[in-house]
């Protein structure tokens, strides 16, 4: 019971920017170290130690980057819409900042997913790109990320920009399933039955365990990057406030 109220207390204090800034500054170095170690281990495991696929050879190893990136790109989008909803409904400043900070990270992961998908495609199926449902919807997701980044960067007043971006991400999260369904179904009309990037045959444990590790380490990476950007965002917005001048600049 007491741990629950302690968590609640911690969450409420996270809403205050001085507390948040100091907390991040304190814990970020160790979080970054853990993340680096975790990421290195998982990638090493997947890229070097996991067994070779009998069908695709060593090329398949790109999935250790492709799958986590694409999972992250969608998770971050959902995260942005949740945080955006909080920003719009409860006018929470920190929620708006979280949205603004996670957008470029999400866009980068989406881009990474697209590029790693292309790299996978070339040796496996001979083309750099294929218009399959998954890749096409990922491309459109990338465009929506760009639109969100475009919106908040075009507005000078930060909180107004946050709110517009929040609204756009809410509309986006509602439209994404519709877009996916329509692309899915359009693809079945145009290309009868082709290979699918998504087909993941049952993997033996020594393949899906490193994959799981990579996915988790990518989530960790997102959290670290987000905290880093959040701290910078707080600094950008509150550099004139007294607490900042006192604690950060004088230190």
């Amino acid at each position, binding site marked *: 019971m007491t741990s629950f109220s302690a968590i609640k207390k911690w969450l409420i204090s996270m809403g205050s920017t001085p507390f948040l800034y100091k907390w991040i500054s304190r814990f970020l170095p160790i979080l970054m170290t853990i993340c680096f170690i975790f990421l290195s281990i998982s990638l090493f495991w997947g890229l070097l130690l996991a067994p070779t696929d009998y069908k695709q050879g060593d090329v398949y190893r790109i999935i250790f980057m492709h799958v986590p990136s694409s999972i992250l790109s969608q998770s971050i989008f959902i995260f942005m819409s949740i945080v955006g909803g909080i920003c719009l409904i409860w006018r929470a400043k920190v929620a708006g900042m979280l949205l603004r900070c996670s957008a470029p990270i999400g866009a980068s992961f989406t881009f990474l997913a697209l590029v790693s998908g292309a790299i996978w495609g070339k040796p496996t199926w001979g083309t750099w790109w294929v218009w399959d449902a998954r890749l096409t919807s990922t491309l459109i997701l990338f465009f929506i990320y760009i639109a969100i980044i475009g919106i908040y960067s075009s507005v000078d*007043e930060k*909180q*107004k920009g946050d709110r517009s971006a929040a609204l756009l991400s809410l509309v986006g999260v509602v439209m994404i399933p519709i877009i996916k369904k329509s692309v899915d179904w359009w693809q079945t009309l145009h290309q009868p039955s082709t290979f699918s990037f998504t087909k993941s045959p049952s993997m033996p444990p020594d393949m899906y365990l490193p994959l799981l590790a990579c996915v988790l380490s990518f989530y960790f990476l997102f959290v670290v990057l987000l905290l880093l950007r959040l701290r910078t965002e707080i600094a950008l*917005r509150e550099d004139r406030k007294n607490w900042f001048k006192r604690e950060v600049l004088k230190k």
Partner: protein
Amino acid sequence: MLEVKNLNCFRSNQKIISDLSFDLNKGEVIEILGKNGSGKTTLLRSILGLTREKEGLVNWKGVSIKKNSHDFLSHSFYQGHSLAVKTRLTVVENIVLNPYSMNREKSEIKDALARVGLKDKERRVLSQLSIGQRKRVSIARWILSEAEIFLIDEPFSNLDEEGSNLIKDLIEELTNKGCSFLLTGHKSSDQNYKHLNLD
């Protein structure tokens, strides 16, 4: 009629208005004075609900505006800096196609336009009129709106002496009928108005 208690208004994270309180009674005129950027426009827009970043209480006829916005909006009139006039429409169209002054009798419209000095300019397109004349179109809407409270942002700007006197007479006429006015401006325009300084 209008009670403002401990109003705080924010704009881009800065407090523009702090702890403002005043009462506007029936038939009264209050002129809010202040330099540019002191929050005069923000105050009016805050009361009307166009700006949502605020704390404090605003009551209309004793009830909080949040609960009673329907009644307040039905009986109020707002004229902002930009007068909500369409330059591609004629004077008459600007009256008829405006929610404040729609559905009025032709004779009433004619009288209102004559009162503001636009008698023979009814069918002129607004782009052909001067800014002062365009302002008079907006003033004609005051007469036709049947509102009880008028929130006017800088009513005397862009008007010559004749225009300013027109407004003063109109305000006097309407306050005698029981309407209240909340105006903003840079300097006092009439000794008889109550003044509130935002600086």
